[in-house]
């Protein structure tokens, strides 16, 4: 039976897992790392780089290196959060004709699902090499707080990459599956997931093999990136005070700052102070300027205290929605790289009045959970079951623009609710239903998912047609709307106009491009990478062209040679 892998498609890093013979394997990438940076780049000579290779050249090529694409999945260009990111990203962001976000790489416009697909494709290839067999199916994780558009975009990314996404599961829920708690014993756990770009908190009830999510809350635009940004802003401010030079306009400088900020932040989780040195960060008439400063943990905590504190509100909402007090919670599990920060840990301890559980690897837990779920779907694991919830209320716009809820947030999924609609005019042939997700009382303040027109209603007096509209949220958290004419019992035709996202034909075209154009560029990138590595490892005597290498001596080199040969064959 073909394997199904679990993929944590993260904002900053991605990770893959698989359960084989009951054992969890974290699948390393082709460089042997257990996580892969979610970074995609196009070099000047048209080679496509993904992962570590893309990240390594980021400083030299900031305009054409796309990172944190997850922040833009399923988002509108006019979203407030996007507006804010516009100023921070060294790459160009533009609106699509339908208002969605697009990014520019190498002068060409890409949708966020396409960029994500490139990451997925790289992961797929690496997994295939590692497992030595084709990988076609995957379980992909998303933040629990992803709405329908963001989930659709993730599913589209899978399709574009040639992956059958058999299930989308929520990251905190996945982490719970991997937490190692015995689901047979009754307990209540909190998953606090602060990743690179998103924050999720979920409360689960365990018992009799079922992981039942009681409530979930979060912020899709709060994560490690924001902590980095605080450091960057501080460094820029300090440099400006000292040298009178504003580094904000310099994309290369910004990228170097981002790199340095992230490293400093990570080191400050264990050290009390770090030195940040960036040589030649700016050039003036008087000559080059260097940035040199010391950042203490204390200062970092002062800079980011409000960010860490802001996670308390979603935690309190989740507790309230689950009808629980902190004392009802048995364990608090931390997931996501940002939870390694001592400040975050202390905030969590204070909110839940409990020391967080230590037994989970915050970088790999989500991928491990996705692998568990893949195993359940394959039928290998039969004694656990996930019952997740929808993080948002689903409803429709009614008279006066009022939002009328049909499915309440924190409802277990899959779920189905139906409503009966009729006409308000004689011989009315269609009824429009606008579907929204959110909690605000006015529809316009929530997220429009799509417009559903019940069309071809047979002519009748007003109020006589009876059309039952079914609102479904499936186990992936994806919405489906269907309708039935109760008078005739026939399926009622619906015209669906999604507010955002790619059309079916767009996805198909992109998937095709992926196998032709992108595969070529990617192969070029891989070749480039392999060449670079060859140069780094060893230049064999008398052989300058890496493409016609003669004998290889070490096992390591043999492996690289064979990888290289794959691409040669494909091209030929």
């Amino acid at each position, binding site marked *: 039976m073909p394997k199904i892998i679990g993929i944590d498609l993260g904002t900053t890093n991605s990770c893959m897992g698989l359960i084989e013979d009951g054992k969890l394997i974290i699948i390393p990438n082709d460089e042997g790392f257990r996580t892969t940076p979610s970074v995609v780049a196009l070099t000047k000579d048209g080679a496509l780089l993904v992962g570590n290779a893309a990240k390594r050249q980021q400083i030299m090529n900031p305009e054409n290196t796309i990172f944190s694409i997850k922040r833009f999945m399923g988002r509108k260009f006019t979203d407030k959060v996007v507006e804010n990111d516009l100023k921070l990203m060294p790459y160009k962001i533009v609106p699509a004709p339908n208002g969605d976000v697009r990014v520019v790489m190498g002068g060409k416009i890409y949708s966020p699902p396409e960029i994500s697909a490139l990451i997925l494709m790289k992961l797929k290839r690496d997994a295939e090499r590692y497992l030595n067999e084709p990988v076609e199916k995957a379980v992909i994780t998303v933040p629990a707080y992803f709405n329908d558009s963001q989930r659709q975009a993730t599913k589209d990314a899978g399709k574009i990459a040639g992956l059958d996404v058999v299930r989308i599961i929520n990251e905190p829920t996945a982490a719970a599956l991997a937490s190692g708690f015995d689901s047979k014993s009754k307990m209540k756990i909190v998953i606090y997931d602060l990743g690179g770009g998103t924050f999720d908190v979920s409360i689960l009830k365990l018992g009799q093999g*079922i992981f039942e999510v009681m409530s979930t809350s979060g912020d899709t635009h709060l994560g490690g990136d924001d902590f980095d940004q605080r450091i960057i802003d501080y460094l820029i401010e300090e440099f400006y005070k000292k040298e009178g030079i504003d580094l904000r306009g310099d994309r290369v400088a910004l990228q170097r700052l981002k790199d340095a900020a992230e490293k400093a932040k990570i080191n400050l989780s264990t050290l009390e102070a770090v030195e940040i040195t960036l040589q030649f960060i700016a050039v003036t008439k008087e000559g080059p300027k260097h940035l040199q400063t010391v950042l203490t943990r204390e200062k970092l905590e002062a800079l980011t205290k409000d960010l860490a504190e802001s996670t308390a509100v979603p935690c309190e909402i989740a507790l309230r929605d689950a009808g629980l007090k902190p004392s009802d919670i048995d364990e608090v599990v931390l997931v996501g790289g940002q939870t390694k920060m001592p400040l975050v840990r202390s905030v969590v301890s204070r909110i839940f009045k409990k020391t967080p559980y230590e037994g989970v690897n915050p970088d790999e837990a989500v991928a491990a959970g996705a692998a568990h779920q893949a195993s359940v*779907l394959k039928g290998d694991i039969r004694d656990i079951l*996930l019952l997740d919830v929808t993080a948002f209320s689903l409803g429709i716009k009614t008279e006066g623009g009022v939002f009328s809820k049909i499915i309440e947030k924190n409802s277990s999924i899959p*779920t*189905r609710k139906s409503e009966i609609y009729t006409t308000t005019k004689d011989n009315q042939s269609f009824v429009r239903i606008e579907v929204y997700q959110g909690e605000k009382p006015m529809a316009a303040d929530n997220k429009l998912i799509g417009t559903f027109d019940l069309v071809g209603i047979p002519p009748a007096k007003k109020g006589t047609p009876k059309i039952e509209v079914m609102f479904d949220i*499936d186990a992936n958290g994806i919405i489906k709307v269907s309708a039935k004419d109760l008078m005739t019992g026939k399926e009622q035709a619906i015209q669906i106009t999604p507010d955002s996202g790619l059309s079916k034909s767009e996805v198909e075209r992109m998937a095709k491009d992926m196998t032709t154009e992108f595969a070529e560029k990617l192969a070029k990138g891989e070749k480039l990478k392999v060449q670079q590595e060859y140069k780094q490892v060893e230049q064999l005597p008398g052989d300058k062209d890496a493409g016609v290498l003669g004998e290889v001596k070490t096992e390591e080199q043999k492996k690289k040679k064979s990888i290289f040969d794959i691409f040669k064959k494909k091209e030929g």
Partner: protein
Amino acid sequence: MAKKNINYYELLEIYPAATQEEIENAFRAALYKYHPDHNPDRPEWAHEKTAEVVEAYKVLSDPLRRKIYNFIIFASLKKTTKEYKFGIFQFNEKKKFEEAMQYFKEGVELFDQDDKAAALLKFQQAFGTYKFSEAIYNVGVIYIITNKLNEALHAFKEAQRLDPENQHYVKVLDRLQELMREIDKARK
């Protein structure tokens, strides 16, 4: 609210008198049986069934919603007694079931004829400890939800008459009367 043709007790395969723990166990067993993860060959069916199971659990695990649900199916029983075989009246002994069914039918008739006290007696016989005042109160709640305030007022008055000691009924009745006065004033 309650869906047509689905009896939550039957769906979860439990007796109407099931305890909270029994309901929870039944819910988990039903999830194992119906969830799409365990039925990859028929995802549509699994989705639909699981959605029903989830809804059934949501209603039956909440004491108030369970009472309202119970009353809805009791009240709708009158219309469907013919097709209605087991379910809410699933007693351990068949003979008792027939007996209870007879009491219940008579109770519904009396209730419709406005002979509440006699109806109460019949219902009590049917359900043992079932409190008619509670049932009437629950009907009132349903009327409020469906915006039929006059009917709700009638139901709450009845509940209070049957159980004068219950302070909650007094409070609810007062609040409703106040609300109706306000609405009247606004109309004028």
